[in-house]
């Protein structure tokens, strides 16, 4: 791949392509530091729990402590990624996930390899080598990711837009003038229609002042495109005007 892209595109045997947004170095570093803090905290907790053992069997307790600390450093991230489908605490908080570069589920061997190769990614210090490699890699992979065939992607929560609800059940006064409706459909570009639709779908995400301003601008824009008779548009709010436009345009695509 010659150019750097922010997404990982995967084509399925069903003939469709989907894309996963790749994680950037800053969010990955933050996730790493969160994990480090969590592991340190967890280790301190365990150290407190095994402290009584020191009074009973100092040698055994120290041996256990040495091994557990090693296991925490090398194994905890691996365990989390294995059990939480490519996520650790830091990755969960930063909305990241490790996935197979072919879009398949992670295998245990991939998790093991990408974590064991931290030894070389860390060189000479502060993940300099891994960071540098990921900067020049089209999929932002560090050496461990490259060997394991994994990528770190951003997890995106999506919901199907409630377009049906937006367009349904409201009386559209424009229907009284089918010839003007036809002209409106002709003049409104797909991009303008999409913009209006998005403004309605995201209605509740906008604060009141911004919503009024946006609807006013959009309604003014559409009013200038086609002029409906005064009795048809009498008393219509800007929002209802846009709703009518959207309903007219999308209905017209039947």
């Amino acid at each position, binding site marked *: 791949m010659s150019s750097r892209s922010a997404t990982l595109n*995967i084509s*399925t*045997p*069903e*003939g*469709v*392509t*989907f*894309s*996963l947004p790749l994680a950037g170095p800053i969010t990955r570093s933050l996730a790493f530091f969160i994990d480090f803090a969590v592991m340190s905290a967890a280790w301190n907790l365990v150290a407190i729990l095994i402290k009584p053992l020191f009074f009973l*069997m100092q*040698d*055994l307790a*120290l*041996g*256990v402590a*040495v*091994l557990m600390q*090693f296991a925490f450093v*090398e194994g905890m991230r691996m365990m989390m990624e294995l059990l939480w*489908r490519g996520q650790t605490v830091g990755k969960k908080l930063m909305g990241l996930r490790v996935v*197979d*570069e072919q*879009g*398949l*589920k992670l*295998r*245990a*061997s*991939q998790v*093991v*390899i990408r974590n*064991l*190769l*931290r*030894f*070389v990614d860390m060189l000479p210090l502060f993940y300099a080598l891994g960071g540098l490699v990921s900067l020049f890699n089209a999929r932002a992979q560090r*050496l461990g990711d*490259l*060997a*394991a*065939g994994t990528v770190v992607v951003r997890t995106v929560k*999506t*919901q*199907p*837009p409630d*377009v*049906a609800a937006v*367009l*349904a059940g409201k009386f559209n006064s424009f229907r009284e003038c089918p010839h003007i409706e036809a002209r409106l459909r002709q003049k409104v570009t*797909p*991009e303008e*229609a*999409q913009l209006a639709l*998005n403004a309605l*779908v995201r209605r509740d995400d906008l604060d009141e002042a911004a919503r009024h301003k946006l609807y006013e601008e959009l309604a003014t824009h559409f009013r200038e495109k086609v002029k409906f008779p005064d009795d048809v548009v009498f008393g219509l709010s800007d929002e209802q005007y846009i709703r009518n436009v959207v309903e007219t345009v*999308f*209905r017209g*695509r*039947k």
Partner: protein
Amino acid sequence: MIADLKTFIERERPHWKELERELEKIREHLADLSDLKYARHVLGLYQRTSSDLARLQGSSSEPELRAYLENLVGSGYAEIHSATRDRRHFRPWQWLVQTFPQAFRRQIWGFWMSVALTLVGALLGAFLISKGVEGREAIYPFPHLVHQTPSERVAREEQRGTEAVSKGRDDLEGRKATFSAELMRNNISVTFRAMAFGMTWGIGTLLILFYNGVVLGAVVFDYVSDGQTVFMLGWLLPHGSVEIPAILLGGQAGLILGRALIGWGTPDSLRTRFRKITPDLATIAGGAALLLVWAGIIEAFFSQYHEPVLPYWVKILFGAVQLVALAWFLFFCGKPKAGADELQR
């Protein structure tokens, strides 16, 4: 472009939501795709959603809907197309007695190369010590091997042993577990490093193996030339017969990684080459780590006791038997039986 977006969403939305629910169930292990009827149902939902996405992909509009469907198809793709390889659950015993030795044998060239590199290093180490090279510190990482001759060390160890036996005390009492844990940690780190440094086109692995060989060769030559062969065998064999092969396994994994990076002798792409070796690498690294846990226990609880506490012949016999057992395990364990092989054909 969808002609009637509203009708399209109204018609398809229940199927999308159902696929979402089923995928969540599969993720939570509340359902699985081994049931053929269920698998067909989920596959049907996934294919329908894929087709909906394909209809949207030609147009630049409806970006939110497209993002939602891409996400859903991505999740479905991961679950459905990975289903066949998820069938078998991890079975530790089977992994140990079959998967591990089989992976070792599949990549045996890496092991022989590890052995060869270590031997070359050992010869150099022996040569340097035989020439009485100044600066033994540069070769030996252990101070107790630098500041005393093997004979002096053997005399001291045996005297300490005699005192311990006569007074009925254990010199290692109270520090065996800690020592053992430190050994495990150190050796496992070295082994993992030997593997990870394979990403330097194998050069890092090569250096680690070679240096280990130099130290080993120097120690062996030092003790043999000083007439302390029996002590040396009794000291090194019990844990070394496991520890050294384990480090060689780490080197084997590193060399496999380096070869995959270079791509020597294969027409596959880099990603395909890595994909092919990843399971074997993880298996060999895991197996080496297990061996080193055992080696750490033996070194702390067994190897450090010398005559008269433990007769040398006992230690040498133990080490030799262990080496043979390990070799048998790695080279023969998990091989299909001749009869079974014929039946499979």
